[in-house]
């Protein structure tokens, strides 16, 4: 029990993530594909008072990307920054050790921003496929038309009474990030809504 391998992080949605196809899958395949990105390193970055520019410059120096504009996200080589509120961002990366991103950000931002580790607090669900937009339309008041919510757009919204952060990662691909405690309930709602399009859990 105390062996190092037990340090594997447990996946919040594991009892629901059964690979397969569900609902009304038509001949040309499921309308929606669902998967969970895990494990991820996630941190909230909030600029300190009057230090927004300094923070952005330091991000650019260290990660090659400046803080995105409101309602946008930006992809770097090793880091993604997503706007999630006034002067607030999610920094997301994969394949880092426990707490490494948090420590990194704290040291490189040199007090220009407050950093909080959220790696375990949020669950990120990938929704893709030609019915992905139609699916999200059933839950969120955000306009997901590509003119209004183009590639790399980001928004805070609500779906099924749950706060969700949405980003568009490709033409027909979105990421939904929400508090982990809601994830089972949200998954049940999401998959129920996806049944008419047919969905595949990847």
């Amino acid at each position, binding site marked *: *029990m*105390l*062996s*190092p391998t*037990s*340090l594997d*992080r*447990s*996946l*919040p949605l594991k009892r629901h993530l059964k690979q397969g196809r569900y*609902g*009304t899958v038509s001949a040309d395949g499921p309308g929606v594909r669902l998967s969970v990105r895990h*494990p991820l390193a996630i941190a*909230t970055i*909030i*600029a*300190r*008072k*009057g230090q927004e520019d300094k923070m952005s410059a330091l991000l650019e120096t260290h990660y090659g990307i400046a803080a995105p504009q409101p309602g946008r996200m930006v992809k770097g080589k090793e880091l993604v920054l997503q706007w999630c509120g006034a002067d*607030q961002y999610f920094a997301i990366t994969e394949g880092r050790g*426990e*707490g490494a991103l948090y420590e990194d950000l704290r040291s490189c931002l040199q007090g220009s*921003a*407050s950093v*909080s*580790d*959220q*790696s*375990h*607090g*949020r669950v990120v669900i990938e929704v893709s496929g030609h019915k992905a937009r139609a699916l999200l*339309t*059933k*839950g*969120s*008041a*955000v*306009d997901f*038309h590509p*003119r*209004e919510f183009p590639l790399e757009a980001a928004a805070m919204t609500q779906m*099924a*009474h*749950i706060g969700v952060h949405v980003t568009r990662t490709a033409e027909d691909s979105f990421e939904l990030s929400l*508090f*982990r*405690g*809601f994830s*089972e*309930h*949200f998954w*049940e*709602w999401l998959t*129920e*809504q996806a*049944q*008419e399009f047919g969905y595949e859990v990847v």
Partner: protein
Amino acid sequence: MSGHRLSQGGLIDRSAPLKFTFDGKPYQGFRGDTLASAILANGVSLVGRSFKYHRPRGIMTASSAEPNALVELREGARTEPNTRMTMVELYDGLIAKSQNRWPSLNFDIGSINQLASPIFVAGFYYKTFMWPKAFWEKLYEPMIRRAAGLGRATHEPDPDRYEKAYAHCDVLVIGAGPAGLSAAVTAGRAGARVLLADEGPVLGGSLLYENEEIDATSGSDWAQEVVAELVSLRDVTLMPRTTVFGWYDDNIFGAVERVADHKMVPGPHEPRQRYWRILAKRAILATGAEERALVFGGNDRPGVMLASAVRSYVNRYAVSPGRTAIVFTNNASGYRTSRDLRSKGIRVAAVMDSRKDAPKLDSGGAPIVAGAVITRVEGGRDIERVAFERGRGQERLECDFVAMSGGFNPNVHLACHRGAKPEWKEDIQAFSAPRNGSRFVAVGAANGSMLISQCLREGAEAGAQAANEAGFRSKAAPTPLTKDESYNIKPLWWVKEGSSKAFVDFQNDVTAKDILLTVQEGYRHVELTKRYTTLGMATDGGRMSGINGSGIVAEATGKSIAEVGTTTFRPYYTPVSFGVIAGPFKGHHFQPVRQTPLHEWAEENGAVFVETGLWMRSSWFPRKGESDWLESVIREVKATRESVGLCDVSTLGKIDIQGSDAAEFLNRVYCNGWNTLEVGKARYGLMLREDGIVFDDGTTSRLGEDHFFMTTTTANAARVMSHLEFCHQALWPDLDVQYVSVTEQWAQMAVAGPMARRSLQKICENVELNDQTFPYLAAKEIKILGGVTARLFRISFSGEHAYELSVPADYGNMTARALMHAGREFGITPYGVEALSVMRIEKGHVAGGELNGTTTATDLGLERMMSKKKDYIGRMMAQREEMTRKDREMVVGIRPVNQNDRLRAGAHILSKGDAASMENDQGYVSSVAFSPMLGRWVGLALCKRGRERHGEIVQLFDGVYGVHLEAELCDPVHYDKENRKLYA
């Protein structure tokens, strides 16, 4: 009346016959029929009984405004009462039943209500209140309940799914008739995102049944071409079977899409209906106009129909309502109907035009009787003749159905949902849509434009303007060539000649005379008339009756109808099912459920869960052989107090607070001070509301010079977060402080009891736990289990030597299991919120029962926490006279005098010898628990001057449980008063 199917024509598919039953009798119709058209084609004219008088009723309209033809559709759990036959698309196997009749539709005992009709005059319901009280309960109420009524709802759960969805568009077009199609295609061609909604299954509106010619093709062909073009446009969405029911702030519209109502059972995974919220940059009202009934004797009999409905049945469904028609009209619509009937070979005995100076119009060869009004419709079960007057005394003429037209009422309802009143238009004698600015404009008949050319032109212009305003470049195409039929009208609000009942509101059985009586009795305002008579309060929302009602009120009060106006139009435009309003959020999905990161561990240990707010919390952990929760809880408390217990406290709100002004921020939001808190230490904090009442409490730790970790109560977590946001953004934006919820990042567990330290030590990596390295209120980051970063706090809610350990959530279950393993030799015991609560009551710690939004810090015995050295939220208001009154209810301990008595929360406290009355009330018991350590019930109470009264014997009175016992007020700390265990 002998309705029948015409041998040809109509937009029905004669190759697709469909079977259905009505009141158990089998019939046949075709694909494309409505239930109404199919039943008419089968020669059935009587389909229901009226609400009050149980009069026989037939089908009056071909639209969603149908007041009479309400049936119970489907069976079992899918039973749907009060369904309008005109809105039901026929499907194979359809089952419908008539309603409000007993024992049968043809022989209905309730129809004797007609004989008692003097009782049922306007305001009858209110008048019954004036008679002896005993009459109300015993006679009137049961009688009215039995007599009045519509269909009956099922008690079975609805087996179908309902959904909600959002839509966004540049231009929303409501109604797909000539004006709506013209608007949609114009805006769509410009590239605008267009949403075209229509309540019918086929787009086309009046073009589906009117004989129109547009650009040398028939109206319905033109509509099909336009629809085909709309389908080809990428950003145009067509929404047939969708009723836009309401217009709300910021140009948001509500709509219901009947996804599968036209099927026996929805397809697999298909919702029955979908509730849309449509956010429209611009919207166009193209809802057309509803024909107005005429008010004359017997106008409610089966076989009396709107003239436009007759055209709809004849032209669109190839059904004639009978063999011989009489048309009664005050405008051009009657002539059009006469022509259409004649062209199908159906006899028209006469067109009776109420206008003496009626313009010469083409009736298709039928005789025209000018200046004539029908006074009475006569016959047995079927109509046989009408009695009419044209100034030569009463005359009679035979027919078996009547087509009537009193003009047209533009469907303006949506345009009035945000408060604007419709505008009277003298030329069409109708109320037309008000001006609401360019975000929502009315076109075509909804705008009072009665000519087909006007509809097409206004639609195109509005479509172009809306697209332009939404940022596209659009220009209206030239209006297609049409043959306009002139429209003129002379109002006829009711036919005063004749004595038989002339109905204004068919569904609620309100007659013209009811309205006159109402005006006589003083209810002269149209809104009062409505409420007194129930005019316009039926499921048709007054669409058939409202304007005629206003007309009659105008005549009776000597005002103009423009002065009288209309009643207020509110959503919903047509009835909306509760199922679709609830959507998917019912049962288990009514509200979200939150699970803690230790849920799996709790399940493994057999937890019984309880919903606290949205959270599922482990309540207690029953073991084999335990008979009830109390037994488990007693064991859990004893194990914890005697050795060690483990409790999931992850639901506490956790807020990460950073910034150079973080300490100052805390100083202002908490009533106690924070400047002196050392790094690595935790402190209990008390937060007041602005009004000086206690808001929340919790421990906050200093992790770094400018880094704090705040915890809140589970219940107030979100509220505290919003409070912090408000304080920072609105009160002190100058502070450099950042805060974010990290509730879900951390799994948090309390490890409590004399063996807590030894259990915990086994999983710690880099720290030796003792009173020097980890004294009471220490708060430090440590490593556990070979490298997991954790936060350890030596704090205690139980009064034991205790810790709270936070680990990143994904490690929660693993850590709890490791602790169980580590504490096995000490008999470590999981405990739930029940045991947690018992221990805090034993220790006199306040919680929800005492932090109830009415208590001050002093009331709670926490006055020493209120700093005198600084300002904070609530300081000033907490000093008000009322808040510092000496006889306020204060927290006190309470225990029954008789050791075996049980305490109950909520019991009132009375001084010894006082009677149980409000004047003598001294307070109440706020929290109770059976104390396993003391072997008796103990509690906390809020009692007047409680702190001065320790030792006093009082009475407890609980009227709900019938409890009356003696109890002693005492120190709230029932157990370990010296706090020896905390520091042990």
